[in-house]
């Protein structure tokens, strides 16, 4: 009879056992803020469809300190989410060859971050211009 009895170790709490996995859970967790912020905007859209009074009520509710705090937290979380998104991007793409050379990972990450920053600032400037 075989004396073999392979032991399978449990996976409980796997993500706490390595700092790399802790960071992974944090950056995946920031996706919650992306969804939450989308929900806030969606509610705004519904209120807009219900008329001027409803819209102004929604705008007013956004000025509460809790909402301001939420927006600050969401800004931080989404900024970090953006950074980690583009950091992993080179690993998810087929090789990009420019002038016979494979584009290095930092160039792909850097381009992504630059485009995200430009889009963010562009949108801010656009809304700022409309609001004036």
């Amino acid at each position, binding site marked *: 009879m075989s004396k*073999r009895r*392979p032991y*399978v*170790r449990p996976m409980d709490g796997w993500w706490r056992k390595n700092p790399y996995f802790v960071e*992974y859970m944090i950056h*995946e967790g920031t996706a919650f803020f992306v969804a939450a912020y989308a929900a806030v905007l969606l509610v705004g859209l519904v209120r807009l469809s219900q008329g001027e009074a409803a819209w102004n009520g929604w705008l007013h509710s956004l000025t509460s300190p809790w909402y301001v705090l939420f927006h600050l937290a969401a800004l931080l979380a989404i900024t970090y989410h953006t950074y980690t998104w583009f950091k*992993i991007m080179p*690993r*998810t*793409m087929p090789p990009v060859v420019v002038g016979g050379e494979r584009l290095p990972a930092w160039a792909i990450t850097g381009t992504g971050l630059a485009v995200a920053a430009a889009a963010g600032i562009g949108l801010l400037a656009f809304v700022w211009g409309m609001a004036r």
Partner: protein
Amino acid sequence: MPHMSDIQKVIEIEVLRYNPETDKAPSSQVFEVPFTDDMSVLQGVQYIKDYLDGSLSFRWSCRMAICGSCGMMINGVPHLSCETFLRDYYPARVRVEALNHFPIERDLVINMEGFINKLESIQPYIIPKEPRTLAQGEYLQTPEQLNLYEQFSSCINCMLCYAACPQFGLNPDFIGPAATALLHRYNVDSRDGGKEERMDLVRSEEGVFHCTAVGYCSEVCPKHVDPANAVNQNKTNAAVDYFLRFVSPKGGAK
């Protein structure tokens, strides 16, 4: 000048032991190992077997990061023990454990049956597009065609990437990083015609979509293969295949 023996350093090596004949579960045992700065963790473990406890079991062969036999968790991180040095942990204790996510056969020896089956299933060899006679001569390949697969061909099957992959730990059926890297290596080789057969595996239940892009597999690879890249490129390939079949049905699509 003190004599060498006067300054002999001693490091504590904590080993996760498991004897299937006597133990219900693995437990730690600490050994005090004299070492010199040029000694690897593998040499430390070999010292234990030679001088302190001959029953300690572990795999090793080449001692120079080529054969891929001596992978272990060292302080919780998957490493080849032959290229990891005791001096980098001293004076703290170094903790050695069998590769994560694999069943422990005994002490530091894991059961690699699942991995070997996966390796077979990807058909890790060139499947010619059409029969070729010797008279037709060798295949010609451009440097660009070589570049597409070369890094993936550096895999030495050490399984460190599986020990780094929580998705494999949570579901051992997942084909996983190394097997996918090698699958991709043959799929993108200009001499190969077996892509269709291998894609069935890519898009299967055990295929690439188990991956959640943790990316740690590529971090720990001792040969600088980027298995996360192979897995994620094939998510795109599988998705493209899925939508293309509506445009140009191939027949027999599952």
